[in-house]
């Protein structure tokens, strides 16, 4: 893995890493209360683009790094567009809002496994903190 934000950069991060890193940074500027807990290591995979990124807590805040993290407790896999739709969906209690059309569309994608979340049930708290962290709302 090569580092994104919060670490010394040894190579230019991939597109997904630059995008997620930028989204996390801009979200934290808007709302500094968004955070991950110590064990909240997450990998996000854009399956159509064959790229992945991992998000993990670090001393200074949150690190976004290229590639899969073997210790990730939650792995989100979807097409590039579906990943962005997930980040853009309105949330209620940290999960897609069933009372909004965009939220229902994301829930439909989850049920149809167009968006797969490994660890969703076992680590629901991590999933909620992740969705809040990445939420564009």
């Amino acid at each position: 893995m090569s580092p994104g934000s919060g670490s010394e950069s040894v190579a230019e991060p991939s597109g997904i890493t630059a995008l997620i890193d930028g989204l996390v940074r801009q979200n934290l500027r808007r709302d500094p209360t968004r955070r991950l807990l110590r064990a909240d290591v997450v990998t996000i995979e854009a399956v159509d683009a064959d790229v992945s990124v991992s998000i993990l807590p670090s001393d200074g805040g949150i690190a976004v790094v290229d590639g899969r993290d073997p210790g990730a407790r939650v792995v989100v896999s979807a097409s590039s567009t579906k990943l962005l739709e997930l980040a853009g969906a309105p949330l209620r209690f940290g999960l897609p809002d069933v009372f909004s059309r965009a939220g229902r569309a994301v829930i439909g994608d989850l049920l149809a496994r167009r968006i797969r979340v490994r660890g969703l049930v076992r680590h629901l708290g991590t999933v909620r903190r992740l969705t809040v962290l990445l939420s564009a709302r």
Partner: protein
Amino acid sequence: MPTFPTDAWFQAFIVSINGSDEYRAAAADWEGDIAFLVQAEPDVHVPDDVWGYLDLWHGTCRGGGVVDRGAGERAAYVLSAPYTRWKDILLGELDPIKGMMQGKLKVRGDLPTIVRYVRAANELVRLTGEVETVFPDEV
């Protein structure tokens, strides 16, 4: 047929945007100008960077065209890629969102806003493929 990426091509693109019901619906609340930076590739007859500019407002395009670098850089959002990547997008051979994830198409601007309007962004870039286009490396 206009040649990509000339001012005539961007004018045809604007006509295409304003004729799209899908874009109008997806971008109904969008407020913000976008610049398309087509990076030079002299070996395929694109000797200089070209900045295309679109003044996008609530599902329509109020104007735009080829602008100088200063005007392009002042846009709220900038999408940039080398000429051949844009050609791939125009031909439908590269999905723009997938291209962003792969780092082939770079985006600058307020990312939370772009993410909220991903359907509009996708539709906008898809509309580039609806413009009948001459490519300078095929002339």
